């Protein structure tokens, strides 16, 4: 399976220390083209820290994060600034929604287009034809993305006024606006009701198929993970304890132990 597909993201022995605390301990994983990979684990296992290392919010203590964009040379992401990582085609969402609350829904998505557009200060002041065209293009493409995630009816609403599920989807739309080839979703279904969750899993599958974007997601909702993702990586106490298809993971004794706790013999 791994031989045929192009490897997009390769993480080798990633370690992250906070003082004396090792939050992520030599974790390796890979995401291939067309995959929806999932990273699961109990609370505090280091999943979000792992995400933050990849996206440049933290600089990892050791290990390699390699990005292999199709048709371009390999890039090492360690220590790059978050905006550089995003520019390279890696977009993310946040566990606790981080929208721009005082901007409209459309403007939120337009921010995502920032790294793909070029008008600087002087051209913005002159506002010549090419700048106006670029602006219009940004508006149109952002609106199309809103249609894609089903938020076009909120277009001029402030982001803070959206219902929670819609905020989550807006975050995905904003991430998509950066034209990524790999999308990192940090607990996209957290706090959603079952109906919203089922809408979300359709959306994620659709993004993966239609847009040809590989996805790596952190999730606690096992139903969602088992349904849409393959492979699954499991972390506990900063270490990777298992990886494989949903079926393999379901029956893995280590995983069951991590989630249900060790049996104590009295």
């Amino acid at each position: 399976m791994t031989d045929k597909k192009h490897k997009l993201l390769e993480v080798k022995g990633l370690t992250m220390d906070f003082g004396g605390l090792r939050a992520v301990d030599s974790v390796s994983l890979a995401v291939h083209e067309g995959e929806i990979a999932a990273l699961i684990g109990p609370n505090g296992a280091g999943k979000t820290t792992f995400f933050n290392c990849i996206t440049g919010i933290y600089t990892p203590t050791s290990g390699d994060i390699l990005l292999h964009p199709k048709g371009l040379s390999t890039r090492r992401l360690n220590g790059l600034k978050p905006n550089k990582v995003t520019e390279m085609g890696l977009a993310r969402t946040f566990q606790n929604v981080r929208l721009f609350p005082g901007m409209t829904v459309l403007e939120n998505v337009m921010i995502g287009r920032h790294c793909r557009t070029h008008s600087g200060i002087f051209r913005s002041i002159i506002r010549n034809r090419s700048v106006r065209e670029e602006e219009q293009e940004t508006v149109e493409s952002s609106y199309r993305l809103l249609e894609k995630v089903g938020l076009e009816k909120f277009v001029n609403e402030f982001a803070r006024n959206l219902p929670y599920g819609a905020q989550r989807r807006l975050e995905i739309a904003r991430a998509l606006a950066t034209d990524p080839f790999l999308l990192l979703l940090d607990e996209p279904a957290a706090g959603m009701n079952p109906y919203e969750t089922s809408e979300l899993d359709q959306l994620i599958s659709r993004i993966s198929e239609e847009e040809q974007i590989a996805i790596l997601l952190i999730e606690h909702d096992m139903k969602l993970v088992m349904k849409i993702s393959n492979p699954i990586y499991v972390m506990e106490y900063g270490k990777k304890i298992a990886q494989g298809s949903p079926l393999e993971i379901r029956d893995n004794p280590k995983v069951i132990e991590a989630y249900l706790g060790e049996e104590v013999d009295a």
Partner: protein
Amino acid sequence: MLREFKQSLLIALWFVFLTFPLMVVRVNTIENVVVWRWANILWVAIGAFVLSYCWRYMLARRQRQSKKAEEGIDTRGPLQAALDNVQLRNRAMAVLLALAVIFPLVFDTYQTSIMVTALIFVVLGLGLNIGVGLAGLLDLGYVAFFGVGAYTYAILNANFDLGFWIVLPIGGVLGCLFGVVLGFPILRLRGDYLAIVTLGFGMIFKVVMENWETLSRGPSGIANIDRPGLFGLEMTLAQSTVYIYYIMIALVILTIIVTNRLKNSRVGRAWIALREDEIACVAMGIDMARTKLSAYALGAFWAGMVGVLFAAKTTFINPAGFTFMQSAIILSIVVLGGMGSILGVILGAFILVLLPEYLRAFSEYRMLVFGAAMTLMMIFRPQGLISNLRQIYQYKGSKDSTAHDG
């Protein structure tokens, strides 16, 4: 009804008690007698009583408004609604421009001079608005950039005899440069820390100018700075004031156009995003360092430019003119007018500069009124006098092209 009456009565009593030592008792130290001014009690009581009713009414009104806003009902006042109407806005602007042009022809030199001061603060407010209002970078030392511009002109004029028009852009660029210089060390700072560092920067500027005698001539300042020239024409004081007034009008218009365009551009959106959420902002591919520095640099640019004009207008500057008080007033202009709102900032500048000027009779109470007004403002209208006008986008969409337009 009765409950409210009782409450107001209690408030009135409380105020009588609080103000008793100040308002009633007066010790005449010459004749060693105590004068009891009992009539004052009555006024305090009546005042407090009436005000408490006003206060209650305002609070109730604000609650109703926020409730309406939650239900999605339009809560814009008539003024805000009128401003959202583009046609009406354009007409109003034309009228205002005409008024501005004929102003010095109708009023005397004194009035024109005051108006120039107000316009200087309009530009300062608009410049600070880029940093504070749009990018959310609190700056308590903004007056330093103003000072940089003023001293640039004063020093270059005194030592090298350079004219106003040559130094005007130099002042702007130097202000810009100092903006970047200040911007670098505070890239990582936020909130309180940022405020303290900028405050320090403002202080440093003043202290340096007071002590670097060879450059700035110290606390005695630089005098006899040339007024702006017009092809070597000799001008009287009155003519020169009118000339400066027109330069200032042009500068204000330029500032409005530029800041307005920037606000509604890719760069401006990045500033606003930075204000809203820094981490999300960088995760969406925005270069934080560049965005912050550009906000500082552009804000400082206007202060530098207008500083040159200030020096040319007063023909004398010294470090005492660039104190924290000035920074605080510029910041108040932005906050009072409405953060991020260009029109609001302009209105705020006129109110804060012109009112004290025309209410000289009450100048003792100026700071008292000022403080009270700001407090009330923050309670009843935290978004400022005029909230930000929203940009309207036109989009077609792929599904239905007609339903969403406008």
